[in-house]
């Protein structure tokens, strides 16, 4: 043993004059900038989707109603309440948060004698750290659930313009599974869907590859799932939790993937009429569109006899005669309707009520009558020369019916809604077939970002060669003799006032003449209510131009219900929802009637 080994430990004495390293005031020691302390939640950003609750491995989070937060589109009104007796500060809730509303402050010291104080709703129950900037938040984008939509095949513009073939391929089953994986199953979309379809549940079926199970689910809420899988206005996707950071879930295409993946003949095995006794009661439905046929589907499955009267050649209503084939192929629609017919629904085409049969006859012969006649008349601008204009809705019907329609080399369309895009793109196709070139001009009052048409419709129309002039007010349809020569428009300086009210102001100096051999008016639409007759029109109660109905779709007449575009327009999924509502109301009335007879 060396002397050095004896002495060297004494070097420790040099520390005797060191300052202590102890933290003197541990209560006021700030956490690091990204310290994971008590939560903060931005009440306005939070949508109450509950993903935080879902991911919490400690079950520390409850979703609770909070004063001042109300359920509404894309917001459940619930907010996370955190039990800090369970929280382990892992911040997975912050990482998974769909909006980025949930973060953590760097505050971590808090002493309280009441254990229940440590259970509260961050952001709602005010805390001193609510506005702290420091603390943990996700460094970049959300990584724990997919933010990018799965790819899907689509015909390029140059291939699709010369024909009416369906544009979108739809997801393959593999692509659908990938897309379905992104859904966090919060269910916020269900409230937005007019038919309240079980969206997260059928997406879960896709994820599991159980397309047949998915189809059964679809039919529980929507007998037009094939059509809706293609042309639904998919308002659900505007409230999808995924949209806040990334692409919304392609709910519509997933629905389509289910319907496409099940072989058509299997539908009849999977969607069977329930085994219920026949009631012997009869319902007449006027109009074989989505509202009428959904009502028919529900009522037929309840054991009633249902007859649908359709004025046109074939059933489907606007889905057939309004929506072009390239968006919704006829064979898809035919198959969809055949499933409904398999429930025992009888559809009588070429039966225009008011002509072949009167509504009074229906009233007498049936226990109930449902009016689902849609909006099949086009409005006119009534500018000078407008009597020479075509109505888009007529033209579309004629194209579907296979009638010869005039196809000039230049067409001008007035309107910025989906119907305007439909006719523009249909005319463009016909022009391409005849002339090899497209010559379609679309003018609308609105600025492009205020167009009523879906964004993709506008983009696809442009890709196909339609030229769009936004903010143009039609002034005159110019005519030479009997032929249309063009459309004269003024620039719209402002269309809405500060309060968002329509108050068009024109710049008369900015005038344009759009040369055209045909001008198509694709503005508003209305119902042809002449079939009601003057007496019934007078008897019925109306509400600002529309037939007045109660919350269940019944009119002021005890035998008459109304559903679909005629009351709530203008899309398929609203019509389907109406159909269900009316079917239940009719069913209740019929049951009461049966009880009375017994």
């Amino acid at each position: 043993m060396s002397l050095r080994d004896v002495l060297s430990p004494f070097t420790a004495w040099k520390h005797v004059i060191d300052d202590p390293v102890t933290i003197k005031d541990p209560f006021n020691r700030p956490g690091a900038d990204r310290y994971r302390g008590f939560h903060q939640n931005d009440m306005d950003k939070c949508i109450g989707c509950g993903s935080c609750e879902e991911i919490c491995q400690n079950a520390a989070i409850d979703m609770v109603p909070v004063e001042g937060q109300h359920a509404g589109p894309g917001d459940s009104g619930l907010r996370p309440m955190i039990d800090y007796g369970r929280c382990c500060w892992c911040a997975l809730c912050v990482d998974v948060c769909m909006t980025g509303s949930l973060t953590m402050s760097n505050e971590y010291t808090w002493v309280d004698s009441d254990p229940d104080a440590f259970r509260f709703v961050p952001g709602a129950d005010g805390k001193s750290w609510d506005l702290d900037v420091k603390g943990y938040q996700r460094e970049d984008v959300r990584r724990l659930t997919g933010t990018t939509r799965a790819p899907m095949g689509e015909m390029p513009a140059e291939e699709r313009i010369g024909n009416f073939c369906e544009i979108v391929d739809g997801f393959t089953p593999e692509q659908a599974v990938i897309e379905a994986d992104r859904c966090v199953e919060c269910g916020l979309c269900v409230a937005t869907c007019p038919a309240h379809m079980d969206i997260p549940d059928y997406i879960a079926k896709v994820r599991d590859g159980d397309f047949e199970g998915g189809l059964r689910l679809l039919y529980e809420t929507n007998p037009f799932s094939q059509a809706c899988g293609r042309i639904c206005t998919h308002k659900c996707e505007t409230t999808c939790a995924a949209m806040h950071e990334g692409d919304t879930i392609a709910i519509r295409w997933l629905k389509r993937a289910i319907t496409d993946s099940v072989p058509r003949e299997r539908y009849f095995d999977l969607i069977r009429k329930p085994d219920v006794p026949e009631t012997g009661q009869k319902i007449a439905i006027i109009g074989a569109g989505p509202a009428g046929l959904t009502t028919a589907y529900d009522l037929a499955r309840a054991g009633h006899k249902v007859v649908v009267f359709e004025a046109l050649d074939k059933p489907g209503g606007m889905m057939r005669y309004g929506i072009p084939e390239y968006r919704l192929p006829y064979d898809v629609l035919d198959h969809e309707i055949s499933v409904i017919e398999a429930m025992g629904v009888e559809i009588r085409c070429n039966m225009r009520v008011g002509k072949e049969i009167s509504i009074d006859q229906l009233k007498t012969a049936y226990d109930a009558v449902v009016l689902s006649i849609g909006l099949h008349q086009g409005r006119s601008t009534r500018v000078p020369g407008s009597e020479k204009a075509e109505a888009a809705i007529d033209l579309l019907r004629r194209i579907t019916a296979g009638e010869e329609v005039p196809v000039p080399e230049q067409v001008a369309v007035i309107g910025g809604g989906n119907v305007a895009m439909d006719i523009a793109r249909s005319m463009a196709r016909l022009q391409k077939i005849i002339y090899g070139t497209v010559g379609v001009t679309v003018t609308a009052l609105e600025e492009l970002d205020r167009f009523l048409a879906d964004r993709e419709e506008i983009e696809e129309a442009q890709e196909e060669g339609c030229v769009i002039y936004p903010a143009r007010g039609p002034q005159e349809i110019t005519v030479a003799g009997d032929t249309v020569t063009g459309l004269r428009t003024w620039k719209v300086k402002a269309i809405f006032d500060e309060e968002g009210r329509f108050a068009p102001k024109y710049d008369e100096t900015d005038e344009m003449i759009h040369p055209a051999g045909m001008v198509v008016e694709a503005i508003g639409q209305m119902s042809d209510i002449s079939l009601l007759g003057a007496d019934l029109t007078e008897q019925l109660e109306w509400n600002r131009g529309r037939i007045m109905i109660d919350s269940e779709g019944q009119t002021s007449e005890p035998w008459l219900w109304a559903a679909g575009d005629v009351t709530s327009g203008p899309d398929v999924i609203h019509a389907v929802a109406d159909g269900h509502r009316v079917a239940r109301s009719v069913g209740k009335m019929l049951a009461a009637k049966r009880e009375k007879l017994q």
Partner: protein
Amino acid sequence: MFSFKPDRSQYPAPGPDGKLEVDLETGKYLKLWHGPNHPGITGNMSVELTVCGDEVVEGKTHVGYLHRGFEKLMERRTFIQVFPIVCRVCVPEPDFNEYCYAAAVEELAGIEVPEMASWIRTLILEMGRFNSYMMAMGGISGALGLGVVGQWMTYVRDIMLDRFEELTGARIYHMFILPGGVRAHLPEGFEARMEEVLQTAERYLADAENLMFKSSVFKTRTQGVGVIDPALFERFGVTGPNARAGGVAKDVRKDSPYLVYDQLEFTVHTEEASDIYARTLVRYKDLLETIQLIRQILRKMPKEGEVMTNLPNVLHWKIPRGETYIKGESSRGEYGYYLVTDGTGYPRRVNVRGPSYTHAMALLEHLIPGTNISDVAALMVSLHTYPPEIER
């Protein structure tokens, strides 16, 4: 110099099942509980000693005070939900659990991790090793009455925890290494603050060296004491510094490089004596190596790049049936996760292979008989064991 050479022949031989039958009634033998709360024990465990005079004739390890059934809990959690609990298996060096679990999930799910994340993971693991060694140094000093070294090491560990806090957002359970990468980049100015910590550490370690390896007291208490015959290493699954102190240069970082260790230069230090002194010295040298490695990582790591990859939706993440074993070199030796998946959203089985499992059980029980009671604390602390690894 004091010498302790007991004569084993005076005690009955252990039975065929390893049990020693002694008659306590004779008053010759005494049962002593070393732990679970005793300054010379690591964590919440205890050794049941049978002593005769000041000589230990048998020692049995008792664990269970910390058992929370982590492996079972993991089976009830989704793959992402397991992430926050793995770190709790080991308090002083939790990051190894995070890394091994993440890497196992990534391997079975086929997920690529960005390069930057691998560098940060390596940095974190070395920082964890630093802290764990600080506790080991403080622990062995404390077990031998050198409390001041324990205080220095605790302070240095504490300022390293500050670096952990600013990097990961937490001090002890960092929950930073997610499957798919890590949570964040280095904060601004991190390198400079880390350098300060490392320099402070070096100053204190130099002082500690004077009190330990250059101290006659320390030498007397540790040299030639608690010798593990290198022939036992394989039979008892001895890894890490415990093996290196006996001349076996076992180090997973070199033997089977993971993360970015193949791009780093470092020496695997060995000693020959295989006693408490050698084991402590190996840890000391490895700690200096770790300081060097942290500097090297910060110097070599890329300055930019993503730290996290996109995961499939973790709320319903399913991993195909499979099994794998991921291992790394922790401060105590080979640390690993055996993960078995069955195609569902939950692990079928997670098994944590901690080096303490063998070191504190079979090996310790094998070493204890014949030691002087005053050396038991130093012996077991020199094995550097953490009981939660035994009873996950």
